[in-house]
């Protein structure tokens, strides 16, 4: 009962924070976009610019409320947002919300796979490296992790494409499904086939961070006083890791996983570009290049919520798992 009520309070606080955060993001993005030298009308009309008369342009501007002062425009826009209307995407000619939902469901499989893979593999590698510090395996893992942690995601994607798609022909070259097929005609296997290279790309970089972080935390654990005492009781290194290491390293790892969602989104933008994967990342790039302001703003919002959810989940894990917080009365 106590746990339930504390979780409720926690959730309420978090929701409030989220709202304030989104509010700040809203103001920030709106001001930013509107201060930009990009003329939304021009962006909208695009190639037809020469065919439009000045009166028609003025009409469009009025229609969009561009002749009003910024505060008025913001108020109208905020009003729309609060009603759930994110506007219509210029590129796709669909409500922004629909576009995002659509695109995100495609990206979701990709990101979820990469997230789970990078978390699990990174954790295991980190434990291995930390356990056998200084050994060959530790150095190999560290070399791998250090190298990949600074690798440009899009380059790794290109390399994988070159090796596995072009040379070995093991994986398809692009897109989320074989071209020419309708969505309902695509099988799960085909989806997986198209998913695998982008997912590996994303997870490879995520593994590096998780491995290094876990390794460092495990080393700290193994150098702690309680590890020394366990050792004095006759515990072997593997016993130490099993009985003390994993438990004490799990919490920092969870925090990192929560924070990893932010990196994941960024990585997805690049990976989807390389693999022409029609997900949310690619939509972001399209929106930026083709000046689709409503869509861009909508994606910015969505990503803020996404990152927030990730961090909150990690926070929640701490509340639940760490006895010092759960039972209270203890400083960490």
């Amino acid at each position, binding site marked *: 009962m106590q746990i339930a009520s504390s979780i409720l309070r926690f959730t309420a606080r978090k929701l409030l924070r989220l709202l304030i955060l989104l509010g700040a993001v809203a103001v920030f993005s709106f001001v930013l976009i509107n201060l930009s030298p990009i003329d939304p009308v021009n962006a909208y009309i695009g190639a037809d610019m020469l065919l439009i008369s000045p009166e028609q342009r003025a009409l469009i501007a009025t229609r969009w409320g561009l002749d009003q002062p910024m505060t008025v425009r913001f108020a109208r826009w905020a009003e729309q947002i609060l009603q759930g209307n994110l506007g219509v995407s210029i590129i796709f000619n669909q409500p922004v919300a629909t576009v995002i939902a659509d695109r995100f469901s495609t990206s979701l499989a990709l990101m979820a796979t990469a997230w789970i893979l990078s978390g699990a593999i990174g954790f295991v590698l980190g434990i291995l490296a930390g356990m056998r510090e*200084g050994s060959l395996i530790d150095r190999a893992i560290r070399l791998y992790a250090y190298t990949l942690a600074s690798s*440009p*995601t899009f380059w790794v994607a290109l390399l994988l494409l070159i090796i596995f798609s072009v040379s070995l022909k093991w994986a398809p070259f692009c897109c989320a499904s074989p071209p020419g097929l309708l969505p309902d005609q695509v099988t799960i296997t085909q989806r997986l086939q198209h998913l695998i290279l982008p997912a590996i790309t994303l997870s490879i970089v995520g593994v590096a961070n998780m491995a290094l972080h876990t390794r460092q935390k495990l080393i700290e654990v193994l150098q702690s006083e309680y590890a*020394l005492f366990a*050792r004095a009781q006759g515990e072997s290194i593997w016993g130490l890791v099993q009985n003390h290491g994993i438990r004490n390293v799990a919490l920092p790892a969870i925090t990192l996983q929560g924070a990893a969602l*932010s990196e994941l989104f960024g990585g997805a933008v*690049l990976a989807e570009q390389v693999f022409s994967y029609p997900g949310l990342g690619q939509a972001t*790039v399209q929106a*930026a290049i083709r000046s689709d302001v409503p869509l861009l703003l909508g994606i910015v919002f969505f990503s803020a919520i996404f990152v927030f959810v990730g961090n909150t989940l990690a926070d929640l894990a701490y509340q639940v798992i760490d006895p010092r917080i759960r039972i209270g009365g203890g400083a960490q």
Partner: protein
Amino acid sequence: MSQSSTTPATTTLSSSGKVARIYPWQMNRRQKTVLTIGLCLGFFALALLGGRIIGDAGLSTNLPSRNQAPSLAHPFGTDWLGRDMLTRTLHGLSLSLWVGLLAATFSAVIGAALGTIAATIGGWVDTLLTWCIDVFFSLPHLVLLIMIAFAVGGGTTGVIIAVACTHWTGLARIIRAEVLQLRSAPYVQLAAQFGRSPTWIACEHMLPHLVPQFLVGLILLFPHAILHEAGLTFIGIGLSPHLPAIGIILAESMRYLATGYWWLAAMPGAALLIAVKLFDVLGEHVRALIDPKTRQS
């Protein structure tokens, strides 16, 4: 009775029950650290000026020798216009490095300044800054970059401004934490009570801690800035396609991947990776050398 402060008071463990050194390379001779730093700096000097050193010879179109795989004559191969990829890569690297360094330096200065001000003034200024940083961290970095670059109109200035405006948060946090800690440190408070002027305290007690953090933070900021610039350029929101930036080179290489011209992507990317990696190495070694906390006794 006093006791030696250099006695290891806690024993530590590793896999075979013997102590594992926390940073193995710290145990190596300090000369090795200095040497590594020297080598890195030498590499960067070369890379930054490389464009001018090598000249523009390899950049001109030379159709007869197009699409060649790496060879002795063209270590990085040639592209579809016959241009030497090594020359293009070096130019691109130089460009990316300059842009990255510029943007990162801006960012670092902004970050350090804001962090110090917030920690010194405290109160609502500090709260505001912390909250601002939280807002920045609430968005995926690349999304934020894209939005800012887009808002500013893209192009080279767009990239520089976008990168400069988003990388200050990390350093601001670190410097702020450091200053806060220093202000509440007993020796600083004692110095104030002894009548030392704030300037003296700042110079004698605070700077030795802050300068290393700033320097190391700055150096470690470069890789991020460079990679982000390359990323933005790659997706088309960064440097102009006329410039041989690494991002452009890689984006263009995508068109020819299917035909098997792997060197168009592999080599420039590898060069970027090495450059970025060396910055990390430089940063870590500089930290080992000058950070009072991690200098081993």
